[in-house]
């Protein structure tokens, strides 16, 4: 069964450093998302991406964050200057495009645990 994959599974970085988290969405999906989950808290939406541009973003997704689809398979999240509070699990998700008025399930990857020291 096709699945979303993410690398690395765990990333440790120093405060102020840049990190890039990578995702390979399911191949026929056209909507891509990043979510994060701080330990013990709920999953929070960061950004959605469709047709090579950001579709929606949350208040969390400020100027230090950016997303890119550098080729036909990868979808990346870059954090420019990491802060301690960026430590969290970051989940990538993807979904098929629905017909107008329909909605499709989002499939999540296993996550990247980011630890900022």
């Amino acid at each position: 069964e096709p699945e979303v994959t993410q690398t690395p599974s765990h990333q440790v970085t120093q405060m102020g450093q840049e990190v890039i988290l990578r995702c390979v969405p399911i191949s026929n999906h056209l909507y891509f998302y990043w979510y994060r989950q701080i330990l013990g808290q709920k999953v929070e939406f960061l950004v959605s991406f469709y047709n090579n541009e950001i579709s929606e973003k949350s208040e969390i997704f400020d100027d230090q964050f950016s997303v890119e689809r550098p080729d036909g398979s990868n979808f990346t999240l870059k954090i420019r200057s990491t802060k301690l509070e960026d430590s969290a699990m970051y989940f990538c998700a993807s979904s098929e495009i629905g017909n107008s008025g329909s909605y499709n399930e989002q499939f999540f990857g296993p996550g990247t645990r980011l630890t900022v020291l």
Partner: protein
Amino acid sequence: SQKIEQNSEALNIQEGKTATLTCNYTNYSPAYLQWYRQDPGRGPVFLLLIRENEKEKRKERLKVTFDTTLKQSLFHITASQPADSATYLCALALNYGGSQGNLIFGKGTKLSVKP
């Protein structure tokens, strides 16, 4: 802003019984609701999606209901097994005119099924 509450942080039941988890929301009516299972340190795993014009959805031992008047969804696992022990997340998406809306998640209910 939209709020979601999953009434119980934890639910303990005996194997073979039906587990019923509750998800309530405030403010806007969502276009659809999704239920996910999450195991410790893992990503959410999609279980069921129910749309605003649907009352009930079933998949094997799982059943979801959606009551837009009560602003509530119920998630049932019948004939529960210890392997069903996990955290179950309710997530809703608002109507963005046909686009794929982002999901707003509840905190989850941790289900423990005892043998």
